[in-house]
Every structure is written in C-alpha cells, then in structure tokens.
C-alpha cells in the first residue's frame, strides 16, 4: 500500500488531507458523518482571546461555484476552547490545530501563549488573512512588515509548529510568504478567502450584512493553485494548499503545485464525508500511477 504520510517540520500527518478552519467546527460536528481519526488533521474554528459574536446575519451568500462568508470569527474564546471543547475532542487520533486570530499583535500573543503548552495541540495556524473582521485580520496579512511582525512575535512565544495562513488579496503573495518565512514560520497555508461581494438586484441591497465577505469554493481554485505554485518556488518551508478542493484530483493538483498538506473547506458543506473520499481517491491515484510515496508528488509539476 502506498505511503500517504507527509511531514511538516517534526510533525507527521498520516495523510495529507485535513479540514480547513471554519469549515469543520471543532471536529465534533463532523462525527455524525465521519470518523475524524481517519483524517490527516483538523484545523479547528478560528479562536480569539475573548468571546466574539461575529457579524450580524446574513453572513453567507451563494455564488457561482462558490460562496461568500462574513462570519467574523464567531467563537467563545480560547479559554472556553481549552476548558470546554478540548476535553471532548482530545481523544481524536488526529492532529488538532487551532487557528488563532487577534485585533492586535498582543491579542495574537495571548492566544498563542495559552495554546503553547497543551499536549494535544502540536501546532497552531496563525490567521493573518481573515477578511471579515474590522480590526486586525487581513490587515496583518497584506503588507510584508506587518506579516513579519506578527509572525515574529508569535514565533517568540510559540515553540511548536507554527503555520501562517496567507491572504490571497495581495499583489505579491510570494513576498508575504518570504516575510513570514524570515520571521520564523515553519509552514505557510494558503489561500484564505478572496474578498468579494454579492448584491440582491431585487432589493438593491448587499446580501451580506457586512457588504463584503470572503469567497471560497471551486471558483477560487485556479487562483489558489497559482499562488501555491508561486509560493512553493519562493520559500524553503512546506506549503499547505487550500482553495476549492472538491475531490482527490483537486488535492493531487495542489500537491503537484507544491503543497505538502491540503485542507478541504467549503466542499464539506455539500458533502461532509468528502474528505474521506479524497483520501481514498489519492490512494487510488497512487496505485494507478505506481507511486509508492505520496510526498514525492509535492512540487512534481512537469514544466519545460
């Protein structure tokens, strides 16, 4: 049987298929449908230092082959996660990776510090790309100095695997990636959502309460693939590929473009079991193509 394991720094994933933050809750919501132990990892819902109610309803707009969301990081705060949620999910035989957020560098640090010593948390994903919050969020991720600064600050307080999640809403994604690499990130994950908007022509109003929101789903896959490929060739750290993955071939494409690990996001809304199908499909692909180790595919795009 083909070897599906992949590695980021010292962290081994049994397979490269993980669930994207904000699209799998804390894993519990998935258990009526799938066994989370079969996944490479769970990037759980974005956490902040304090409880956040998120943005007012409506927060979602369907688009062609995609959707906009403006959740605004609704969560009960990192302490609630540690005290109430983690005990319920800590037995999952998969990596639980929190996605951390803040409106100031200080808030990011506070969240990271609280997660640093937890034995079941081997890594964090630093989200500097949320387009749906007024303060912080994407602002950190769209200039090199701010991306560098927040990554460096977290690096100082967080010794385990540090993944930085990049915003696609920038002119030069590779420069941001290099900045966070220089600041000590162990990996980059991309892409977060593209900033978009939906209008109801009949009411003449924006569909979202926040007017703009983040676009996800297959619509953005071509942009995501391009950015993964560009970043893979510009940095020395592993890349986690995200954006519109709906099936195994999509995941393979991201790996060929340079991803070591992939995250399945919006696809789970339509089929909560899709991540397991992606794993199975990757296995089938490897068998058909006589590839014994999946990780050999990473960056294997043939260009001449």
């Amino acid at each position: 049987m083909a070897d599906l394991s992949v590695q980021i720094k010292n962290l081994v994933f049994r397979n490269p298929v993980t669930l994207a933050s904000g699209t799998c809750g804390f894993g519990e919501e998935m258990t009526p449908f799938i066994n989370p132990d079969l996944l490479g990892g769970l990037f759980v819902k974005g956490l902040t230092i304090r409880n956040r109610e998120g943005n007012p309803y409506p927060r979602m707009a369907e688009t062609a082959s995609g959707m906009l969301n403006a959740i605004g990081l609704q969560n009960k705060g990192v302490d609630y996660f540690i005290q109430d949620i983690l005990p319920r999910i800590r037995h999952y035989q998969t990596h639980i990776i929190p996605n951390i957020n803040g409106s100031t560098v200080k808030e990011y640090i506070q969240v990271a510090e609280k997660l640093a010593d937890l034995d079941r948390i081997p890594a964090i994903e630093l989200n500097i790309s949320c387009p749906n919050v007024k303060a912080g969020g994407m602002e950190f991720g769209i200039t090199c100095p701010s991306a560098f600064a927040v990554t460096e600050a977290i690096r100082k307080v967080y010794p385990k695997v540090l993944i930085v999640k990049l915003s696609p809403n920038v002119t030069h994604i590779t420069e941001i990636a290099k900045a966070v690499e220089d600041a000590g990130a162990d990996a980059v994950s991309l892409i977060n959502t593209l900033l978009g908007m939906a209008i109801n022509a009949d009411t003449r109003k924006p569909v979202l309460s926040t007017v703009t929101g983040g676009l996800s789903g297959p619509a953005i896959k071509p942009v995501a693939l391009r950015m993964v490929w560009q970043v893979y060739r510009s940095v020395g750290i592993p890349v986690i590929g995200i954006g519109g993955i709906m099936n195994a071939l999509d995941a393979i494409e991201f790996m060929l473009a340079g991803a070591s690990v992939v995250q399945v996001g919006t696809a789970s809304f339509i089929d909560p079991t899709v991540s397991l199908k992606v794993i199975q499909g990757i296995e089938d692909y490897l068998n058909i193509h006589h590839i014994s180790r999946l990780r050999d595919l990473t960056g294997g795009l043939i260009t001449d």
Partner: protein
Amino acid sequence: MANKVVAQLIVQEITPLAADHFLMRFHSDTGLLPVDAGNFAQLATGDPPAVFLRRPFSIFDADTALSMITFYIKVVGKGTAQLTGQKPGTRLTGLYPLGNSFTIPTNARNALIIAGGSGVAPFLLLSRKLKKQGTHVTFLIGAKNREELVLTDVFQEYGDVETSTEDGSEGFKGLVTEHPILSRKGQLFDQVYSCGPVPMMKAVSRWALKNDIPCELSLENTMACGYGVCLSCVTGTTEGNRCVCTEGPVFNHKLLTWQT
C-alpha cells in the same frame, strides 16, 4: 452526537398542489433513519445541481417502515425549480435528519399552529404527535390567495382548520395574524407553534407574549452546511448568536432577539 447521514434518495412521486407548490416523495433503498417533528434535510437539487449549495427543507412526512420521506416544496428560485422538475427514478442525495424538534408538553390540551406560506411544512409530523397524545389542535393557515392555500384537507384530519387569504378568496380576508380566532379564543390555547415569513412570526410572538402562551417558532435562515460547522445561519438570541441548523430550527420565541 445523533447519527446523520448523506442519504441516497430516489424520487418517487411529485404531486403538484398548486402552481409552484409540490409534495415530493422520495424512497430510500438503504433504509431511513428515524426523524422527529421539526427536523429538516439538506437536499441536492439535481445532478449536476443548478446551484452550488444544498437546499434545506422541513421533513413533511416520513415513514421509516416503508423507507419513504416527503417534502413540501414551494418554488421560489433556481434550486427549488430544479428540484421539483426532477423525474421519478432520479437519485439525489440528502443530509438528514438535521436540526432540533418541537417540544410537546404532555399536559397541552389546546395547541394552536399558525403557518404562513410554505410554513405548513413542519407541522404534519407535529400534529400527528399532538393528536396521538390527545392534544386538540387548531390550525390557522394563511396564504396569498385560495390557490396557494394548500394541504388544508390533510391537516383537517388532525384538528380544526381556520384559514385566511390576503385577497379574501378563501377564509378570513387579511393577514393570518389578524384572524379573529386570535382575539376570540386567545386564552384557550396553552401552546402555540408557528412557521412562516419573519414578520408573521414576529406578530405571532407578540400575540403569544401578550396572552402568555408558550410559543415555538421554526426559522428558515439561509444555510450553507446545515449541520453546525459554517456558522452562516445564526439568529440572535438572549444567549448570543445561535445556529438555526443545530440549535434550531425550532426556538422558544422568548429566546429570540429577532435581529433577523
């Protein structure tokens, strides 16, 4: 957590009730999970679907023994148009059973169900339960006109049916919430349930508050996932934002802050 599945559902019969109103019965060849009154399903509208996301519909009727499940669907856009245009034999997938269910006080003697538009959908399963435990049910069903006042015959088997239409073509002329039954017999009801357009449910809630009758509302917020992971479907409650898909669709009206 309770089991939920991505079920294969085979279209069995589509019964037109009026222009744009349909009952759609599906059969499952792998068996049906038990469902509760108030639960809903997230249906794919076709293969390929004309819309990106699934569409939520209350479970109108279900017979686990016969592996049949029925939805009442009103066509309002692309997804419902595609779904109701499917042919018998077509296989679609559906996530179910989703959401919570109505509470049924065992001591309720007189229940009132107020439904507007497609809001009748969740109430067949509920009234069957109510009838079984001996609760008398009054239905107050409102629609735009006589044409769109559907399924009243079905509900008649479970209780008294009062109707209203905006154009007066049948029953009381006016909004369902202005129906004289509400002023005449208000004090007689010891439980109210409602589903329909938000302004209607707000009026129902005010009426129930005033008359101090316990009231449950079934909300229809737009949804992406339907099982609690995307946080799209929230409604404001006194305890903060709550997901309509997992902590609802049925809410005690006192909990809602009606931000939507």
